[in-house]
């Protein structure tokens, strides 16, 4: 490794691997290292041996779960919006050829004691049992208004200015009930809290349109989400493969001992007695503990189940389930993400569910209780807390570009925004995606 590179990348999380792939394709000489002996960092999918090593180092994995190769347990609960930025990046880079994707079969929202399917279209809205008849009409009008919106054509605006009026005002205009606002904002626009209500409606509009266009993005989708077979950990591996094909060098299981600076600028990375040189270093927060700050905390419970989530339609091999903050009497929503052997992430007849939320109290596990209750009997539960970190500086001074932690949102939109942001800072130009 004692060589000069254009860019050294530390950590093989999804953000780092996408950047590594994009930069290699552009002809940059990339060295990509990870302290772990597996790909993916915080966004990895672990086999059982590694899962137990991480969460219960004192225990060995039980024999009843079978072979390691049948398990790919995600550490973070995220699905891909079918019309989202990650899909666009996958198509742009042709990494779709290395990975297969399947649908997530349903999206649910809790209301009172029950869970309901999230209406994904005007038609769905009309048949949903979530609302009364008059409210259904109002929701239909609201969704039609959003879908017909055209910036250039004031006749589609109905007196609303998306950049001036806040979202509450738009809801008021369509006289939507509180419960409807709740599921539109939390289950369609996928906001984690209610602060969006006071902001200009534009972003909420864009999020709802993303939801609706995702549901119709591929044939036969029943939710806006798709998911890679063999788990989310395939995504970083796919981009790492792209990078390697274009000359990127990969070293796993590599201790990173020092980031070397000269006059405040990065010049290389040392591992034991070898030093690789580069003027730009990209990495996840765990490699730069003194250059990041904590902005929050998430708590997640990875659960092994032997049944689908109760009270969902039959054949639901995978679902997203949202408990909006008001229902939970909290400031942030609780999310449940469930996948199964259909996605080759666990042995046959098992299901994997991750319950997660943003930490608000000193007893984070208790904050997940409402979500855990919806799972039925839990065979195995691994609870862990992680800090959400972000870089203090943007890298223009020292040449160090640090990614953000994987946040509590249920999809990859914020990850892609981070990728684009870092890409621009590293290369000095916008990432322009091929758009068919």
């Amino acid at each position, binding site marked *: 490794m004692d060589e000069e590179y254009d860019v050294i990348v530390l950590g093989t999380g999804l953000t780092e691997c996408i950047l590594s792939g994009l930069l290699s394709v552009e002809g940059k000489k990339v060295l990509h290292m990870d302290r772990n002996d597996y790909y993916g960092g915080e966004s990895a999918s672990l086999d059982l041996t590694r899962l137990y090593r991480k969460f219960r180092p004192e225990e060995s994995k039980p024999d009843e779960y079978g072979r390691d190769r049948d398990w790919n347990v995600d550490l973070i609960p995220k699905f891909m919006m079918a019309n989202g930025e990650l899909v666009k990046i996958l198509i742009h880079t042709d990494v779709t050829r290395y990975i297969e994707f399947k649908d997530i079969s349903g999206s649910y929202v809790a209301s009172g004691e029950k869970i309901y399917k999230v209406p994904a279209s005007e038609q769905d809205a009309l048949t949903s049992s979530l609302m009364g008849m008059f409210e259904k009409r109002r929701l239909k009008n609201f969704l039609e208004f959003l879908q017909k919106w055209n910036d250039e054509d004031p006749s589609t605006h109905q007196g609303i200015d998306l950049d001036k009026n806040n979202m509450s005002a738009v809801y008021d205009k369509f006289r939507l009930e509180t419960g409807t606002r709740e599921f539109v904002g939390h289950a369609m626009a996928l906001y984690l809290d209610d602060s969006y209500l006071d902001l200009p409606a534009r972003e909420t509009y864009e999020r709802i349109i993303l939801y609706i266009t995702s549901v119709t993005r591929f044939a036969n989708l029943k939710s806006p989400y798709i998911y890679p077979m063999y788990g989310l950990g395939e995504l970083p591996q796919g981009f790492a493969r792209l990078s390697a*094909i274009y000359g990127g060098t990969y070293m796993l299981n590599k201790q990173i001992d020092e980031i070397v600076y000269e006059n405040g600028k990065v010049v290389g990375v040392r591992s034991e007695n070898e030093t690789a040189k580069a003027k730009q270093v990209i990495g996840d927060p765990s490699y730069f503990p003194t250059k990041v700050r904590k902005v929050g905390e998430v708590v997640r419970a990875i659960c092994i189940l032997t049944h689908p989530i109760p009270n969902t339609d039959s054949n639901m091999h995978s679902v997203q389930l949202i408990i909006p903050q008001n229902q939970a009497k909290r400031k942030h929503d609780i999310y449940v993400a469930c996948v199964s052997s259909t996605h080759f992430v666990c042995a046959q007849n098992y299901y994997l569910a991750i319950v997660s939320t943003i930490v608000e109290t000193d007893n984070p596990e208790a904050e997940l209780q409402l979500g855990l209750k919806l799972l039925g009997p839990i065979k195995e539960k691994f609870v862990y807390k992680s800090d959400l970190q972000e870089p203090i500086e943007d890298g223009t001074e020292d040449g160090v570009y640090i990614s953000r932690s994987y946040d509590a949102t249920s999809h990859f939109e914020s990850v892609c925004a981070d990728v684009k942001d870092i890409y621009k800072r590293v290369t000095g130009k916008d990432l322009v995606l091929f758009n068919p």
Partner: protein
Amino acid sequence: MSNSGRAITESITRTSESTPSPASAKPVQAVPSRHKRFGSIRVEYLSSLLSEAAVGKSSLVLRFVNNEFSENKEPTIGAAFLTQKCRLEDNKVIKFEIWDTAGQERFHSLAPMYYRNAQAAVVVYDVTKAASLDKAKSWVKELQRQANPNIVIALAGNKIDLVEPQEDSEVLSNIFREVPTEEAKAYALEAGLLFFETSAKKGEGVVNVFTEIAKKIPVEHIMSANRSGSRNILNQSSSRIDFQPDGLNGPIGRRTDGSACNC
């Protein structure tokens, strides 16, 4: 090479409408149009190469796919997939989809993604370097632990041309065989591997590696375990997401796709 994914599909289609193969000199035959049904085998292509010494894995694939050999081949850049069709004695037609490991194995950093669904692996060593067989053995072990339990593994000792008597030269080669055929063969037998010695340079034994692999894989596995995710017989309610119908190939694939198909 700048075929997009779509172009590959087209060239396969064209071939099955019986365009003669440019590489018809070799025993792999072009596929006439009536043979619409064929299985596809994904072959994972592993090399035992160490960082400083190439054992000729890419040359072997190029010989198989394009029937060509390049003396000073640069390390593989931009080549992801290579495909080749092969007709067996019983008229069974098999499409090989070969994944190049792109050097990720050099520092023992091969992604498990390569093992997924691979129905066969070719582990290559260099007959003139004993250490390369040791490395090959460690890959075999890893494959047997991690990969699909039905995977067919072939061990190929490459570069036998270097240790064969030179016909047209008075100069004696100063390169010696370090791995005796019998030793490697005995190991392959013990570990349950197919065994071959090859010369990518002269084209010796290369096609044989693939035809023997094809014979060894039970036809029902080929039919049921295509890369197209049809392994998913567990749950018919799940639909696989298909990116291809829209012809959605990004500019990167379009620009420098390493795929080749001369079937």
